[in-house]
């Protein structure tokens, strides 16, 4: 069985290619000059430069977190380049026709045909290539509804009050080491504002892609859903194959005002490194949302990529009756290490949260669920339910669960359950005896294991996620 | 003894009882029949004072007391007993401790001397035998791991110990085989007395072959739509509930 598993685990990284275009890249290193350069290059207002510099100064006093169940060599932050923009972007394209054809071909290979998407109504894409947003579609239709969906660098200029009011309001500058770094050097990202009572007319989507060697990507996303509004946001990530490790430290902030709903879905397929653990992305991301009265925030993530992942999309359930959800599938194959989960902080009365986490470990992968559920003293009648399952494939991998549960209100209820299971020889034999090959059988078992999470994804994503999982486990059975 | 007048009650803001009236005199046995969702069990819970069941209007008097004003335990001590359809399991409390606490609470309420431990034990054992439950059940957790039939007999045992004035049996026949049904019916019949009344809630006429009712009432949509003697139950058995429902509609 283990031979078959080994074979199945071996997989090719389909998105692993380098786009050959000229870039403007800052030499490696981090200091105040670099931050001033980034800010000047983006033509930012003074307050934002000050904000970045303040973050940088705080970052200098902080230390890297060491509590996660992952190990990696020290990161040399001066060996990273903090700004990279494709040269051809110097004169910003006014439409897709003006976009570098090679760039567009990159998206085609990734399966994000922008041309097609323009026709396939329903998904607007703000594509971030390295650090600069290159193409935004469906702007008009969104504008009609009053929805703002643009690169955050643009929003800083066009909607400075909104950005200034909410930037850093959910994830404070000094929240953690990597969020502080992001505040100092963030490159670009998306800004979304849904006005009062508006249901966003389409799913919003951003594909991020790291292309340039030795560049870190520090995107910053801010979504503000005003009272009674509703939005679903999709995020997909891939990166080319490189021998060295690359750092990705993003920050995502969600603000759901009274009665608003935000659904944030991620399919993360950054380069995981090769079979021997060489290369791959370090994915150290801070994602958090604050839910006001009756608001609803839902995180869904399918994490199959990255060499190392530390990521805890969280909800601050501040308003009464607010709801937080976290649905996650995380796969660690070969030498991948993932330490991921969520935090649910119940502040308001009658707040509700649901956590469903499915961890899959294969090869020599290590997969940890780390979560925190806290019922503050004011969280009258609040409820949480957590289901945390691990599936192990092969005897070299690790599956871990570290839930922190804090009860401070006697009327609040927290329920946490965790199980582990494996894809057993018996199951496979049964499938094989019924005519399925081992690979299909594992895919089927794994898909069944993840079903609860997949059904939370928008339809197109659910299919993609299932396939991605299958590819990631290719060769993995016995 | 029990007088229900124009009772309206709701659960989770859904109105279930819609103007139910019923007069029960000493020593009578009333059967309440109806389809699922007609409000039969709700009536039992409302009378027993279960949290979450809100009376919106109407009155219930028991022996000149306003029943609805009383806390559940006071209703119980005053002589109201509900045999639950789904008795809850209370692990960690033995049946014996539980029964003793209940009997003592009742004695205290009436200012009586509680039974001494050995007398009580003797009585409990006797009742165990009467309902055909092994005496080892006294040492087990309340309803813990009991089969459906054992739970029902355990309810009966409590009823026999507490000697209520009004006993409400909520679908006590559901899930019982014929032998268990006979045991339950024998227990109930042995308790029949001029100063004790019964409300027998059931879906099927079958139970009424064993516990003969003085009156049969049919509940549709939270109200009694037809009352009669036991022949009404036979008529229902024959024609089904649709007949009455259609008539009401």
């Amino acid at each position: 069985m283990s031979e078959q598993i080994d074979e199945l685990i071996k997989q090719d990284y389909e998105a692993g290619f380098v786009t050959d275009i000229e870039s403007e890249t800052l030499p490696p290193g981090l200091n105040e000059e670099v931050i001033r350069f980034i800010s000047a290059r983006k033509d930012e207002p003074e307050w934002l430069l000050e904000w970045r510099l303040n973050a940088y100064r705080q970052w200098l006093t902080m230390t890297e977190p060491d509590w996660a169940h992952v190990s990696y060599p020290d990161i040399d932050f001066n060996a990273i380049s903090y700004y990279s923009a494709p040269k051809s972007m110097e004169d910003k394209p006014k439409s897709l026709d003006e976009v570098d054809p090679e760039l567009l071909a990159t998206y085609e290979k990734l399966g994000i045909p922008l041309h097609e998407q323009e026709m396939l109504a329903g998904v607007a894409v703000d594509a971030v290539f390295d650090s600069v947003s290159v193409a935004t579609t469906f702007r008009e239709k969104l504008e009609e509804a009053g929805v703002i969906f643009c690169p955050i660098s643009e929003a800083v200029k066009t909607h400075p009050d909104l950005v200034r009011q909410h930037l850093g309001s959910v994830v404070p500058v000094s929240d953690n080491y990597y969020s502080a770094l992001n505040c100092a050097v963030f490159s670009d990202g998306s800004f979304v504002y849904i006005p009062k009572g508006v249901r966003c007319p389409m799913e919003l989507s951003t594909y991020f892609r790291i292309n340039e060697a030795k560049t870190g990507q520090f995107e910053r996303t801010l979504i503000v859903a005003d009272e009674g509004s509703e939005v679903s946001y999709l995020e997909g990530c891939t990166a080319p194959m490189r021998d060295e490790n690359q750092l990705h430290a993003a920050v995502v902030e969600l603000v759901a005002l009274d009665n608003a709903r935000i659904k944030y879905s991620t399919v993360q397929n950054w380069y995981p490194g090769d079979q021997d653990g060489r290369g791959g992305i370090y994915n150290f991301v801070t994602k958090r949302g604050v839910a006001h009265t009756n608001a609803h925030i839902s995180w869904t993530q399918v994490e199959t990529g990255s060499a190392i992942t530390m990521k805890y999309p969280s909800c601050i359930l501040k308003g009464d009756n607010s709801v937080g959800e976290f649905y996650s599938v995380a796969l660690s194959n070969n030498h991948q290490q993932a330490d991921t989960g969520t935090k649910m902080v119940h502040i308001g009365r009658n707040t509700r949260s649901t956590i469903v986490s499915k961890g899959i470990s294969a090869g020599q992968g290590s997969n940890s669920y780390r979560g925190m559920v806290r019922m503050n003293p004011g969280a009258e009648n609040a409820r949480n339910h957590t289901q945390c399952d691990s599936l192990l494939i092969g005897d070299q991998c690790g599956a871990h669960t570290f839930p922190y549960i804090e009860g401070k209100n006697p009327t609040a209820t927290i329920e946490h359950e965790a199980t582990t299971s494996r894809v057993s020889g018996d199951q496979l034999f049964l499938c094989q005896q019924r005519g399925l090959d081992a690979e299909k059988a594992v895919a089927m078992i794994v898909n069944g294991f993840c079903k609860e999470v997949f059904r939370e994804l928008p339809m197109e994503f659910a299919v993609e996620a299932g396939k991605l999982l299958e590819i990631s486990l290719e060769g993995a059975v016995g | 003894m029990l007088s229900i007048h124009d009772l309206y009650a709701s659960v989770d803001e859904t109105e279930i009882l819609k103007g139910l009236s019923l007069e029960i005199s000493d020593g009578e046995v009333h059967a309440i029949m109806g389809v699922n969702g007609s409000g039969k069990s709700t009536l039992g819970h409302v009378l027993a004072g279960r949290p979450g069941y809100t009376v919106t209007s109407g009155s219930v008097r028991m022996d000149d007391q306003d029943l609805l004003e009383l806390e559940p335990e006071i209703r119980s001590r005053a002589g109201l007993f509900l045999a639950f359809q789904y008795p809850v399991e209370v692990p960690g409390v033995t049946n014996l401790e539980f029964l003793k606490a209940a009997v003592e609470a009742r004695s205290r309420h009436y200012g009586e001397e509680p039974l001494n431990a050995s007398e009580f034990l003797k009585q409990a054992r006797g009742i165990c035998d009467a309902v055909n439950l092994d005496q080892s059940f006294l040492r087990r957790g309340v309803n813990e791991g009991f089969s459906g039939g054992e739970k029902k007999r355990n309810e009966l045992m409590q009823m026999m110990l507490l000697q209520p004035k009004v006993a409400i049996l909520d679908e006590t026949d559901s899930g019982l085989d014929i032998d268990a049904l006979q045991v339950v019916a024998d227990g109930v019949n042995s308790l029949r007395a001029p100063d004790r009344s019964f409300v027998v809630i059931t879906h099927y006429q079958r139970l009424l072959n064993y516990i003969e009712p003085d009156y049969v009432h049919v509940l549709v949509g939270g109200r009694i739509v037809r009352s009669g003697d036991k022949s009404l139950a036979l008529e229902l058995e024959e024609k089904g509930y649709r007949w009455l429902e259609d008539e009401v509609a």
Partner: protein
Amino acid sequence: MDFEQLAVAPAASPVWLQDFHAASRSALVGVPWPDRKTEAWRNTSLRPLTDESFNDSTMTGSSDPSEYRIDDLNSRDVVFVDGQYKPELSDETPSNVNVVKLADASETEAQLIRSSLGTIVPVSQHFAQLNGSRLNDGIMLRIRGVVSQPIRIVWQSNSHGSLNHRLLVLMEPGSQATLIEHFCGIGRAFTNSVSEFELAENSHLHHYRLHLEHEAAIHVGGCHARLSANASLSGFHLGTGSPLKRLDVTVNHAGAGADSRMVGAYLPKTKQRIDYHICAEHSAPHCTSESTFRGIVADEARAVFNGRIHIHPGARETEATLDNKNLLTSYKAQVHTKPELEIYNDDVACAHGATVSQLSEESLHYLRSRGLGPDAAYRMLNFAFINELLDGASEPPLAEYLRTRLQNWFEQEAP
């Protein structure tokens, strides 16, 4: 505070014990004093220990062990008063139970002791290393064959001093015994206790550890077992709170087919703290472990529970479960629970669950519908929540003793 500074070896010890002191001390070199940033101490403060000096060894009460008698248990008692073994207060033990004072061990006994002492408790238990570095008095119990009478270690503390408790139990192959560790007394001492249990092949131990000492007594310690092939351990833990009570319990399933069952309850009230860190280590195949801990946290008390299952790569066909349930009975009570799984092997069936919740409305109503008042129903269900854990107790008189104490405890605890 500083571990190295505290690690002062007593004078005049046999050479092997001096070596042991040195080894324990060396494990503390450079170890920082735990604070809130130390993962294992993030929710428990050592302030009550560091804020006071525990240097008053004057006895504050009677040392008569009969006060802590357990009726009908018929146990053979081994009595310690303020950390010192008191043969004159102890019962004679059955012939197949050897009691050896560590400092008086013969050469062969010392050899036996050294092969286990300090090797069962994990090195990362710094307070245990501290205990080792200061070890003066303590005993080894060697158990052969079947011991039918329960053996009770009475850990009585009567002073305001700093106490070092140490026990080593060697269960010979095939032996069976019941051992009760009873912590009691009216002293407000700081106790650092380490009990180690070596269970040889096919041995079976019923172990009870009752922390019923004075409500001001500070305790940092624990008990640690190593199970050889087909050995089995059944553990029962009960702890009331104090300004600082931290108890570590580890069970290492080191031999194939070992089995452990652990049950425990913690009941802090007023402003008390209690912190149980339990860990089931599985390093051999075909082992099972099952842990069930419950807590009722009242008033302004705070409870911490950390339950870890750690499955090592070779531990095939492991079955391990952990269940932790908590009730908070006040708006100022708090509980921090962390059930952890760390698994390096796919051939396992593991599960854990933790809840923080309330008594069920349905159960409360059922009791009230039978005439019990709300307070009585509430007390009965609280009692039941803990009493359920006593159902499987191997010593009925002990269970009875504890039930009475629990009843009293809950009588004082109105909603």
